[in-house]
């Protein structure tokens, strides 16, 4: 083809601008998607990209990537992206759209994602009529994980988990469009297929319409695309395409299930978000003007990174203890994290939390090797005692450390905080006694910040007083203990 001849031709169909020129995912193959030959995702991606180009919305589109084969959509689309946990894309899309109403939010999901683990999210997003566009790619199987039965698997269809074919004992194929069409709010629901040329062209129109509806502010639109998976179906690309048309469509009928595009009125845009300054008043707490002066200038450069693990049984105030530290740290202008970990029981289950207080931004809220462990019962000491860093501290709620938990390379303070709290008036303040001791060790939280946290988290005046006394007692306990050490040495 000579240049001279090329001049007579214009480009009619080419790669959409909404795609990156190359895909950075791998060293090699940067021209190609990671999809198998003949995969429907590529076709649907192109339809979405084409619609983004045509509607001129690339700079305000935010794609919500799912879990499944299309998890890597963010490597291909040159738009904003949030990758959601399995099934949660419509919930994430809701948040993105509501906080950034000017953005165009496209939730892209497969059937293992949307129709199984995410069935609640899609149902409620549709029922709320969220002004988002959902592209639902249905291939009747879990493909990425190797071909397990999905809710959308056809009756009689074999999968690795229904090798003899799906029977009624595994339920029936879930019809998402039909299901959502029973709801009042959705504006546009259509099932399309990639079974032949005509259907592919119709699918492209439907995808564009679903996105255009959002641009016009009309509300919830969903397009279900019956899409080939040649690899898992064990067919050639062309056979898979025919199977959609000849077999899959018998179960999943392609048609429009709801179309109020002509009559729907644009939904009012949400009002401006409440300004942060007003939030404390709405919650009935005093606004804090500026973070309390944490320390003098010299101290501001000192490195701080305290990692604390607090463990006990549910009901001992283990989580509150950690929350109090984090709250006080926040008040003192530190970076903080508080990560609770507990079972479903409200009482008597095990419970622990990770707390970090640092000057620099915190990379991970997990505390694997704490500087300080507060073990509010013996099982906690058994479980976490060995994880404490050398030179660290173990605060044990008991007067005698079990021999197997003894360590010579850490400081072990064994006092019954429960007993001490009981002496003060209520054994339930044991957590605050322990906190007092932690504060005395760490020495990074000014008392004003601790008082602030206490007032913020403890509402009852009776408890406020008791907790304040318990904190003081805890500090004393540690000073006494240090005294003993000095004395012993």
């Amino acid at each position, binding site marked *: *083809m000579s240049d*001279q*001849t*090329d*001049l*007579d*031709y*214009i*480009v*009619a*169909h*080419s*790669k*959409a601008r909404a*795609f990156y020129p190359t895909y950075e995912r791998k060293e090699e*193959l940067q*021209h*190609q*998607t990671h*999809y*198998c*030959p*003949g*995969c*429907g*995702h*590529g*076709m649907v*991606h*192109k339809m979405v*990209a084409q619609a983004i180009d045509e509607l001129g919305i690339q700079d305000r589109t935010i794609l919500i990537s799912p879990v499944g084969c299309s998890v890597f959509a963010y490597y*291909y689309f040159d738009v904003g992206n949030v990758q959601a946990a399995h099934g949660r894309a419509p919930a994430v899309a809701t948040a993105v759209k509501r906080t950034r109403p000017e953005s165009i939010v496209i939730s892209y999901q497969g059937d293992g994602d949307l129709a199984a683990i995410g069935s609640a999210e899609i149902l409620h997003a549709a029922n709320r009529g969220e002004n988002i566009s959902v592209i639902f790619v249905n291939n009747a199987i879990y493909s990425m994980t190797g071909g397990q039965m999905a809710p959308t698997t056809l009756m009689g269809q074999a999968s690795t988990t229904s090798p003899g074919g799906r029977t009624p004992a595994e339920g029936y194929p879930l019809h998402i469009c039909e299901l959502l069409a029973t709801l009042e709010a959705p504006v546009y629901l259509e099932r399309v297929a*990639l079974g032949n*040329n005509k259907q*592919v*062209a119709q699918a*492209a129109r439907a995808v564009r319409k679903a996105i255009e509806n959002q641009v016009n502010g009309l509300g919830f639109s969903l397009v279900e695309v019956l899409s080939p998976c*040649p690899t898992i179906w064990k067919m*050639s*690309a*062309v056979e898979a*395409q025919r199977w959609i048309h000849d077999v899959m469509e018998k179960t999943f009928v392609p048609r429009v299930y709801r179309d109020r595009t002509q009559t729907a009125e644009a939904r009012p845009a949400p009002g401006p978000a409440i300004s942060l300054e007003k939030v404390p008043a709405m919650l009935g707490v005093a606004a804090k003007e500026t973070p309390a002066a944490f320390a003098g200038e010299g101290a501001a450069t000192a490195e701080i990174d305290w990692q604390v693990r607090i463990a006990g049984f549910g009901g001992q105030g283990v989580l509150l203890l950690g929350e109090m530290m984090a709250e006080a740290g926040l008040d003192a202008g530190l970076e903080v994290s508080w990560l609770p970990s507990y079972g479903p029981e409200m009482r008597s289950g095990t419970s622990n939390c990770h707390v970090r207080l640092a000057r620099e931004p915190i990379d991970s809220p997990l505390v694997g090797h704490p500087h300080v462990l507060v073990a509010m019962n013996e099982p906690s000491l058994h479980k976490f005692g060995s994880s404490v860093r050398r030179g660290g501290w173990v605060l044990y709620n008991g007067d005698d450390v079990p021999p197997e938990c003894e360590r010579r390379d850490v400081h072990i303070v064994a006092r019954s905080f429960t007993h001490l709290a009981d002496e003060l008036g209520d054994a339930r303040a044991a957590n605050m006694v322990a906190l007092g001791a932690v504060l005395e060790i760490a020495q990074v939280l000014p008392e004003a910040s601790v008082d602030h946290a206490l007032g913020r988290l403890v509402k009852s005046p009776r408890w406020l007083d008791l907790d304040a006394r318990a904190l003081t007692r805890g500090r004393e306990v540690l000073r006494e203990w240090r005294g003993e050490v000095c004395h012993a040495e």
Partner: protein
Amino acid sequence: MADGRRDGGRLQVDTDECKGCGLCVEACPPKVIALSERLNHYGYRTAEYAGAGCTGCGICFLVCPEPGAITVLRLKRRPAGAAEGASV
């Protein structure tokens, strides 16, 4: 173009990107696409233009799963009276 007529369209295939699934071969209305005998760098038989008759309809582009494997060109409309191939 031995007969002096030009195709209404032209097909360009990025042989690095094509995975040889064959959907374009199946979809092409005038049936002018075939899979090559040669294998590309990754071992795929890629799509190629197999003779005259492309109309530039773009259906091959639509069914192709790869974003940029196929580019379709279409012959410019000429002002009335301009002879075919006058610029050659």
